[in-house]
């Protein structure tokens, strides 16, 4: 095993990881940064975000509006101090990106353009056509190349955090091209490893979104928070689940059922206006829209296709010019993957697993309960997203909290951060190495990772879909527990040291099973309906008993120990979420 000494180790080189690395480098150029990622930075899943990032930019908007949209969008499960910090900081972060070269789309006067997104009162989503995540990621990656203190370890798969005495001393990672385990001894570690949407079968998430970082933190005792809140994006393409951005609706697209009827008006989001009205109809929040689909499906008003039931996303009235200028990627994706041109035909879509509101429990400074360990981005739960994330808040979140994590870690490394305790780190690394070697070398096992992965995904979809109920959740819980047992009986056929994806996929599966269990158990015990967590057997929000965060603690081979934490409420008392005309959103001309 090779040992690498560094000051800050960052796990994951997507938007949050790169932003954190730059923040550390700018705070103190003398700090050594190890940026560890299982893929090259530009492959990270930030790349797939399309629609944009929200930040107050116009005189008719205000930080208060952004705050209230976010808090009510999250069904009051958001921590309001964090939301306050977030809405205050994000305009600066997006401005920095502009200075770093992000090709934001512009108004005629040369100012950065904004578009409407779901659940926002005033339009405030900055965008770079319909490839905002791609441009943010590449801007950050390319900008990161100018800092000599950022040393990248591309295609290193992180396996274990080196934690002892409540303090993090580093991380172990497998260099994929050699198969060699490396121990990174560091003063601090920042986890920016993304979400784990791949625990579900039908998702917009790339293959790399397997919750590795969440599971790593979970295994060393950091609780995972609010994991039962998983977001369905209302508009994914059939079969592949490819995302069609909310920007399609922000630009004015309609959702139609099989009769060509804008069905959202039947679900408290109306009336249907020709011009898009903010916070209404197609610009309602994602949880409400996905739930409306479920009801339409029950009423038999969706379109039957070989890939399941669909509704239509109709953009024809936007015209070719606008579609080509604002949504060129969407047009390309729809034409390529399902042979439908949005200029001439409505596009079949259905809700698809998109984002995990839950994640590694952190405080407002992105710090976890373990000293020297931070988390930011989708893997973390601050929480600004509560029970339902507003579209275009995730890119903002990874910037704001990625930067905060970087600055906090840098300050820690400078002041109280001791050199990693070499003996302890070596000890823990040896244990990690033994754990992985055991999985790798095990022979005579009957199970195959691919089969277990399929079973896990099915269990999640059946138990923890758009609507949930006790019986199916209990079944899912026991199935996941059983799969965790069977995991110990997997035999990895590929014994090569070099770029062994059989091994990596198996380790990823281990991480996914861990976090999947927190999703279904969290969902089973939350006997209310809030945001993205809807129980058929417990309708309605229950603020008396459940205005609190779920925290799941790792409990060995047994199911997670579930506990709860209070929600931080500063200025917005829980109230009814209001959408449709009553929400008073502006009408876009």
């Amino acid at each position, binding site marked *: 095993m090779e040992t690498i000494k560094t000051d800050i180790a960052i796990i994951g080189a997507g938007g949050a990881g790169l932003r954190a690395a730059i923040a550390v480098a700018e705070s103190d150029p003398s700090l050594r940064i190890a940026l560890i990622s299982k893929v090259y930075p*530009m492959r990270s899943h930030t790349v797939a975000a399309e629609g944009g990032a929200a930040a107050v930019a116009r005189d008719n908007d205000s930080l208060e509006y952004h705050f209230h949209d976010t808090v009510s969008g999250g069904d009051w499960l958001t921590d309001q101090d964090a939301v306050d910090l977030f809405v205050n900081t994000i305009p600066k972060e997006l401005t920095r990106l502009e200075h*770093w*070269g992000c090709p934001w789309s512009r108004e*005629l006067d040369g100012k950065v353009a904004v578009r409407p997104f779901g659940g926002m009162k005033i339009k405030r989503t900055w965008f770079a056509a319909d490839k905002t995540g791609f441009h943010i990621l*590449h801007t950050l990656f390319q900008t990161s190349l100018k800092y000599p203190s950022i040393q990248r370890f591309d295609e290193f798969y992180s396996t274990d955090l080196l934690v002892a005495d409540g303090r993090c001393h580093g991380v172990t990672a497998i260099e994929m091209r050699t198969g060699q385990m490396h121990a990174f001894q560091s003063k601090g570690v920042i986890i920016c490893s993304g979400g784990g949407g791949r625990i579900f079968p039908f998702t917009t998430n790339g293959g790399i979104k397997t919750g590795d970082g969440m599971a790593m933190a979970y295994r060393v005792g950091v609780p995972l928070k609010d994991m039962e809140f998983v977001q369905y994006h209302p508009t994914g393409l059939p079969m592949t689940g490819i995302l069609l951005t909310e920007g399609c609706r922000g630009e004015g697209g309609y959702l139609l059922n099989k009769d060509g009827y804008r069905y959202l008006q039947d679900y408290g989001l109306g009336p249907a206006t020709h011009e898009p009205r903010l916070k209404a109809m197609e610009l309602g929040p994602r949880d409400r829209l996905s739930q409306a689909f479920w009801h339409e499906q029950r009423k038999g008003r969706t379109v039957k296709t070989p890939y399941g039931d669909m509704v239509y996303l109709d953009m024809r009235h936007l015209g070719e010019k606008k579609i080509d200028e604002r949504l060129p990627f969407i047009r390309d994706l729809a034409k390529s993957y399902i042979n439908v041109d949005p200029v001439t035909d409505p596009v079949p879509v259905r809700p698809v697993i998109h984002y995990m509101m839950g994640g590694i429990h952190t405080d407002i400074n992105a710090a976890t309960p373990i000293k020297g360990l931070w988390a930011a981005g989708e893997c973390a739960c601050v929480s600004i997203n509560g029970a339902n994330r507003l579209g275009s808040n995730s890119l903002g979140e990874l910037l704001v909290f990625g930067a905060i994590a970087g600055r906090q870690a840098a300050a820690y490394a400078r002041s109280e951060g001791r050199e990693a305790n070499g003996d302890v780190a070596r000890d823990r690394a040896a244990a990690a190495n033994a754990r992985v070697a055991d999985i790798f070398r095990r022979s005579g096992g009957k199970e195959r*990772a691919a089969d277990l992965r399929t079973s896990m995904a099915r269990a999640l979809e059946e138990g923890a879909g758009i609507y949930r109920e006790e019986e199916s959740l209990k079944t899912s819980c026991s199935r996941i527990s059983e799969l965790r047992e069977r995991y110990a009986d997997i035999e990895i*056929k590929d014994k090569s040291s*070099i770029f062994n994806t059989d091994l990596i996929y198996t380790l990823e599966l281990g991480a996914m099973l861990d976090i999947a269990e927190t999703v279904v158990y969290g969902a089973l015990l939350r006997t209310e309906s809030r945001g993205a967590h809807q129980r058929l057997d417990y309708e309605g929000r229950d603020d008396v008993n459940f205005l609190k965060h779920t925290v799941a603690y790792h409990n060995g081979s047994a199911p997670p120990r579930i506990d709860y934490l209070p929600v931080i409420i500063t200025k917005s008392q829980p109230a009814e979420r209001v959408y449709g005309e009553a929400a008073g959103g502006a009408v876009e001309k």
Partner: protein
Amino acid sequence: MSETRTIKIEILRYRPEIDSSPVLQSYRVPCPQEWVVLDALDYIKNNIDSSLSYRWSCHMAVCGSCGVMVNGEPMLACKTFLREMGDTVRVEPLLNFPIERDLVVVIDDFLENLKSLKPYIIRKTEKPVEEGTHLQTHAQLKRFKQYTLCINCLLCYAACPQYALNTNFIGPSALALAHRYNLDSRDEGYAMRQEIVASPEGVWECSFVGACSEVCPKHVDPASAVQQMKITSTKDYFLRFLGGKR
């Protein structure tokens, strides 16, 4: 659903611990209408041979991981439909790169080249965040926008016969990104990039075969960037004699 045909996928495999040179291995896979090459690779990995290694992630042609040669052409495995292929499809690792294993190639060279071109905004004085964003007109944005669309999939390197002959060539994608920053109205780093751009390993290694632009899945047209940089480099060269500056 239409009847599913079966096709033969031939994969050029290289297992460094076993093979002294790459060998073709064939697999029979089903091929539903909507399957792309990547779906076939996943099918093999999950059902026939778990030891097959390849890179992939987004399955929507934006992460740039899954570039491979399909029937001799550099393509994104996630956007190459099997329905458009015959009954035998050959998949090989991207040409012109060392093979690490199976379909995984070594791209260190590209990353070094990209870094050497300083692909980030360079300014004499940084604008403070408090002063807000720069103004950029539609024309200013349009001038460089196309070159921002590169996903670093490196199909262009696999198509470039100059890079095949001389891997010291900086290559299409990296040069296109240098051009992207040169053209950005917010940037002042042109002169700093010229050192590499105008070097023999820079634009002058290109003989305008144009293959890079033909295979580019994002229509970045790196060939055009390189030709434009040749013109500016030439102007620089002559202007130097006239004592002028660009």
